[in-house]
């Protein structure tokens, strides 16, 4: 009689399993760093001296794809063959300014949120926070030079530039 009752009454206690599952979910939510979403998929060059990067929160990241396309927060700020809208480069006078969108975005959406410091020598307010240029290893260097030039434009004045590189295994080199 008693045995029969035990047979019919097999009930799995769900509570520990649900507890574990929730725990796992919370773990994955935490590990799933949202700042990673700003990183485009590309292959960084290898550098021995690449200091380990502890990303400061809010540091702007400019991803540069092999064809020079600049992606910031999933937004394209420059691509090859972009419309200049008739703008001219403020540094190279008389040349079309293909980087107006990058310059405008940096000036209006990035620089206002960065720390500034007044430079006595130049009598100018400079940005004291760094910007990370995260370029694919095959990117022609002229595209990165252009970004650096844009960083020194009036109204932006970012001078701390970090170049992303990976401190990887020798098997990665060729």
């Amino acid at each position, binding site marked *: 009689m008693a045995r029969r009752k035990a047979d019919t009454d097999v009930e799995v206690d769900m509570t520990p399993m649900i507890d574990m599952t929730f725990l796992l979910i919370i773990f994955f939510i935490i590990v799933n760093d949202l700042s990673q979403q700003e990183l485009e998929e590309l*292959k960084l*060059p290898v550098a021995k*001296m690449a200091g380990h990067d502890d990303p400061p929160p809010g540091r702007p990241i400019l991803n540069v794809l092999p064809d020079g396309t600049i992606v910031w927060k999933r937004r394209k700020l420059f691509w090859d063959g972009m419309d200049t809208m008739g703008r001219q480069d403020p540094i190279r006078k008389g040349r079309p300014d293909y980087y107006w969108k990058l310059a405008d975005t940096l000036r209006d959406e990035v620089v206002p949120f960065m720390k500034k410091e007044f430079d006595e020598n130049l009598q100018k307010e400079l940005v004291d926070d760094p910007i990370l240029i995260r370029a694919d290893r*095959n990117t022609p260097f002229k595209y990165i030079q252009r970004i650096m030039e844009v960083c020194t434009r009036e109204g932006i004045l*970012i001078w701390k530039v970090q170049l992303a590189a990976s401190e990887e295994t020798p098997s990665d080199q060729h």
Partner: protein
Amino acid sequence: MSERRTNREFEEVKPEMTPMIDVTFLLLIFFIVTLKFKTLEGRLDAALPKDRGTSSSQAEEIEKVDVILQVANPGQLVPDPSTATQSRPEGRLLHYSGRRIRYTIGGSEFTNLEEVHRFLDKFDKEETPVTIDARKGTIYEDVVKVLDVVIELGFKQVAFAGSFEEE
């Protein structure tokens, strides 16, 4: 009849767990799948001229080093086996194979980085400013390799030359 009803009311109320467990597992699987582990990336610090544009101060008496990078052989853009995946066993991303860069420092030419390393080692690292002048056709990787050597040697002042050449 009424007796029966009260009996029922006192019956244990068991919430239906199955949908909740389903949803929970779904969420769990979603987070596992979308998980991208923190990629370990390094960085090299550099500084841009604080004053806008290129500096045109010629009257500099101090010794300075200008590393000019020119492409000797651009190499071939081929799939990189180190980025192989199951669907693309030959490599998902491309890299240059057989690429050669010519480094010119103060009139002497070098073809590999070990020589550059040895040559630059003679300079006073605290005082000598180094300018990396990447010419036409150089890619980011070439520049990072040189920058890596310069930083490894301990040079304190590293700058990049402007690119005012015609395209």
